[in-house]
């Protein structure tokens, strides 16, 4: 008997009551295309197109208002021989490496502290994230004021503690400026590390620790052989993410020093801004911006390889 067949959704979808658009959207491929259209349009227009435009600018001699002509790799040659660019490369690498190490170590420490149960834990956790959520330029302004050579509260504290005898010119001294900028970056980024690592720590079953403790593992050994290996995947993702952000950092340095004194804190982004927007040399600015790209590519490849490895396991 065939009249007991249950109507399947596709039969319904084909029923004459429905308009052509509804029927079209019943097809998974058409629906997917419709749903993705706004995203693809916006990302195409404001990411893919600017990227192509950036590469095009890099091989011309365009300035603001002047389209420019094709000059081949002249811009790359120019920045290759540019002393300030060398300084910016070095600064950016030092800035990224030192800040990342400190953020990771201190962030992990803070995450381990927060992983204990204590009164006011939720409260503490909420407050600790403030440096990360408050607009960076605004909190950086507070740091600029704290670093002010004449009115610095940090100098006052260090002096009262007997650690210094004369004033420290945090941002004005070329040898100290990069350190000062790194301090602010670590201050801003540390909460992100701590809270993300804490989320990772909370997925580790306490039973593993108890088992290790029963087997006689001391606190350090438990961390080294139980916590750390389990935390490594999350840590890797956080570090890669933060390395890109730090490598491409702009606002912090722009507010604190503007790249000075004498380019001592000049990074890729600030130098690109100075040339591309400040002096209107669009093509050279775009070329310097593109220097971030290899690092981005490297991180993306590591990420993708890593994700594939996790998926195949």
């Amino acid at each position, binding site marked *: 008997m065939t009249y007991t067949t249950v109507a399947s959704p596709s039969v319904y979808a084909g029923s004459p009551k429905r308009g052509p658009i509804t029927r079209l959207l019943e097809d998974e491929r058409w629906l997917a295309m419709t*749903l993705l259209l706004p995203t693809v349009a916006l990302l195409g227009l404001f990411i893919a197109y600017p990227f192509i*435009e950036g590469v095009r600018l890099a091989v011309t001699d365009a300035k603001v208002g002047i389209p420019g002509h094709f000059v081949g790799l002249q811009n790359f040659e120019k920045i290759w021989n540019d002393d300030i660019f060398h300084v910016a490369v070095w600064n950016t690498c030092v800035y990224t490496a030192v800040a990342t190490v400190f953020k990771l170590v201190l962030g992990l420490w*803070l995450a381990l502290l927060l992983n204990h149960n204590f009164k006011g834990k939720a409260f503490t956790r909420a407050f600790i994230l403030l440096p990360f*959520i*408050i607009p960076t*330029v605004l909190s950086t302004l*507070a740091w600029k004021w704290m670093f002010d050579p004449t009115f610095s509260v940090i100098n006052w504290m260090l002096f009262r503690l007997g650690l210094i005898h004369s004033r420290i010119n945090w941002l004005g001294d070329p040898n100290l400026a990069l350190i000062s900028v790194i301090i602010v970056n670590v201050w801003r980024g540390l909460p992100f590390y701590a809270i993300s690592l804490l989320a*990772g720590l909370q997925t580790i079953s306490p039973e593993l620790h108890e088992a290790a403790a029963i087997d006689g593992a001391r606190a350090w050994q438990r961390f080294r052989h139980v916590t750390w290996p389990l935390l490594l995947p999350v840590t890797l993702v956080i570090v890669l993410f933060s390395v890109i952000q730090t490598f491409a950092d702009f606002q912090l340095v722009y507010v604190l020093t503007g790249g000075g004194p004498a380019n001592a804190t000049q990074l890729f*982004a600030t130098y690109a801004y100075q040339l591309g927007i400040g002096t209107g040399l669009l093509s050279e600015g775009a070329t310097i*911006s593109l220097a971030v790209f290899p690092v981005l590519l490297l991180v993306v490849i590591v990420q993708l390889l890593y994700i594939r490895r996790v998926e195949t396991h």
Partner: protein
Amino acid sequence: MVEGALWRRWVFFYIPLTAFVVSLLFPFYWMMVTTVRPDSELYRPWNAPNYAPFWTTHPTLVHIRDLLTETLFSTWMLNTMIISIAATAISLFCGLLAGYALSRLKFPFAGSLGTVIFITYLVPQTLLFIPLADIIRNFRLGDTPWALILTYPTFLIPFCTWLMMGYFKSIPKELEECARIDGATRWKAMVYIIFPIAVPGILSAGIFAFTLSWNEFLYALVFLSSPEQKTVPVGVTSELIRGDVFYWGELMAGALLGSIPVAFVYSFFVEHYVASLTGSVKG
């Protein structure tokens, strides 16, 4: 709680934790003290004998008054609010639809499109701001809020999509299948069955997107030029510093008031915020 003797608890737990909390929050305290400190006390060198850094005996609201009456601060607040809300709405709309498509539907190149969106998530603003400034100028969007409303989604959509994908994956497929057996179209099952369940995810993504838009600096600095179009971060850093003179009282008042909307949203939705922050990392 840390096990062991009392001194161990202090050395390994209370002291380091207090040190972290104090150093992370001190700049905000300093912002507040500076805001209410009169100029006569503000500009006293740190090595002067009567330098009293942590409190003030004559609190004043004169800096806040000056900020609100003599500068365009309230205009900047309004601009930032409009831009952040509009950019967040666009990004949520796109991210919600794209997240649904990528996590639920089978279509050619689904996997590679997901990867491409993930990669755009990692693209920093620094890479594109110069060509983008050129494009904005060609589209005649320069110095209008649209320049930011349309470009902020480039870093918000990937994040929203990624978060919503994770959220949709946690909703059982059977829910939709039931609705479709009952006669709902795919579209209706998506809009009336799945989206309402995804509201907590949408809220998390929205809060995160709002704070990111409020914080954005580089695009706002490059794309906007007239003072009355600026956002809070750009207005405070560029307009309150006249020449080489820093009006620290007003600057800190601006920094404080400019942080309040974000802090306000954050304080109500801490859990959502933390969920989206950690969710975006774990992917």
